[in-house]
């Protein structure tokens, strides 16, 4: 029966992917097209938070720092060292994963608010480092002239879509696997997990490493999309926005993460006609969505499927 549920879940992903794949075919004005690309790029970092927060229960408010690490690694390699963009695109997430693994070490001892403060600190350290290491990063002037991995914007869109789809499928598989279960056990009860043989430290480190890898990948795509990097794109407020997208998507749902990333990325642009009151309305809409998201969220939908499945089981059980 688990398989049927899996198929339904995977099909939701396929449906989302196919709908998105139609966008370049239909033809969308280039700015809106860019926003959708940014939404998908954000989806990757939100999925990274789904793994870290939704599964493992480790709250990070420093993911903008990891995004920056990925973005600047890609940018600096391509601009200053003339590295082939594809190779830079591979190095960036790996390097970010190493930095993120360092962040995992304090999580062995720190929990709750203490860990959150540590992650905020990491985010700030990275941002301030970028701001002041002018020779390497361009400091407040930013890093310009970053070549994209693919110059054709439609092909770039499909590349991002394929990456997001692959990550979504992989994350869904991870979720139901031994590793996913160990993550969830850590979230719910570290002592129980440890006593049942889960090496809690190792798995926390793994969660931080996977999450940082994805954050770095998202950063490399960001650098590739914008062609320009500036420390202002990686502030605490950005980390908070990623967290918001994660919570909005139902915390541990991959399709939810994708949809909420697209929605929250697009929302300020949709509201742009409101000019000054834009951010007020933006915040208000988000509050309303969070208030009523229980009725909307994909978690609810998946629960619906699960319930249906249980009923079938009961019928079968009664017949035996």
């Amino acid at each position: 029966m688990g398989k049927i549920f899996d198929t339904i879940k995977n099909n939701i992903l396929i449906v989302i992917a196919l709908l998105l794949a139609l966008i370049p075919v239909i033809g969308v004005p280039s700015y809106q097209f860019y926003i959708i690309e940014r939404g998908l790029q954000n989806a990757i970092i939100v999925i990274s938070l789904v793994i870290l927060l939704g599964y493992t229960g480790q709250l990070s408010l420093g993911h903008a720092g990891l995004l920056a690490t990925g973005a600047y690694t890609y940018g600096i390699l391509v601009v200053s060292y003339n590295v082939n963009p594809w190779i830079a695109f591979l190095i960036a997430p790996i390097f970010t994963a190493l930095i993120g693994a360092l962040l995992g070490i304090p999580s062995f001892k720190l929990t709750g608010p203490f860990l959150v403060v540590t992650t905020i600190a990491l985010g700030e350290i990275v941002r301030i480092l970028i701001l002041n290491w002018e020779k390497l990063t361009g400091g407040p002037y930013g890093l310009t002239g970053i070549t994209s991995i693919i110059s054709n914007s439609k092909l770039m869109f499909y590349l991002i879509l394929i990456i997001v789809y692959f990550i979504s499928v992989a994350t869904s598989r991870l979720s139901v696997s031994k590793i996913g279960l160990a993550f969830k056990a850590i979230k719910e009860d570290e002592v129980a997990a440890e006593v049942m043989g889960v090496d809690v430290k190792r798995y926390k480190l793994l969660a931080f490493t996977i999450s940082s890898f994805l954050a770095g990948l998202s950063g490399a795509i960001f650098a590739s999309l914008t062609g320009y990097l500036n420390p202002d794109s990686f502030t605490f407020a950005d980390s908070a926005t990623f967290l918001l997208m994660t919570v909005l998507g139902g915390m541990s749902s991959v399709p939810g993460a994708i949809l909420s990333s697209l929605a929250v990325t697009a929302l300020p642009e949709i509201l742009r006609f409101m000019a000054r009151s834009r951010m007020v309305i933006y915040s208000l809409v988000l509050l309303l969505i969070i208030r009523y998201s229980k009725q909307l969220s994909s978690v609810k939908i998946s629960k619906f499927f699960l319930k249906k499945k249980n009923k079938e089981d009961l019928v079968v059980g009664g017949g035996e």
Partner: protein
Amino acid sequence: MALLETIGLVKRFGGLTAVDHLDLQVNEGEICGLIGPNGSGKTTVLNVITGIYKNDGGKVIFNGKEIHILTPHEICEHGIARTFQNIRVLGSQTVYDNVRLGLHIQTKSDLFNIIFNTKQVREENERIRKIIEEALDIVGLRKEKNEITKNLPYGKQKVLEIARAIVAKPKLLLLDEPAAGLNTAETENLMEIVRNIRKRGISILLIEHEMAFVGGLTDKVYVINYGKKIAEGTFNEIKKNPSVIQVYLGTKGDE
């Protein structure tokens, strides 16, 4: 040689000596009881054996190895599983997944195989499913396997914890007050489950206040008070032991 042996085990919390030079032995195939008044240090003994607390002195030897230097997950790998006094199941996961957690150390799938959902992973999932269903049959939770655990009644959550522990294929199972909070019928059922587990070659060390339960199951009972062993022997022997009676009922003219 004993399967589990503690030699002069000491655990202190600040000035309080919770476990005081305790010597225990659990032989292979035995069901041992550990009893004593509230606060006598029984649960602390289990926590030291499973590595949740580090001991302050003495040794824990399991299967010929000193395990007090190991971490809890390593101790689990050596073949000790346990349940908790106040159940520690994963409330928001299904019953099935709770038992699956017990199979953690036996599951070999790595990240690569999981991501690409290789044949190895699919075969392993199938193998695991059979083990889990078998364990759920032993404790009588087959029908509830897809339920979210926190929706189960207390008694079922308790036996679920036992199912989770036995799929880990331990040599020794530690049960911390398994019958607490269960009604008479549930307790009877639990005794049957524990006997079944012993038949599978798993030795058991259990803490329990329910004396009918201890008397009906154990081969040997240790009585501790203030962390010190005050008696050991069969249940019938310790029942007559004056120092045990004194601890539980007080001496004449004590009031």
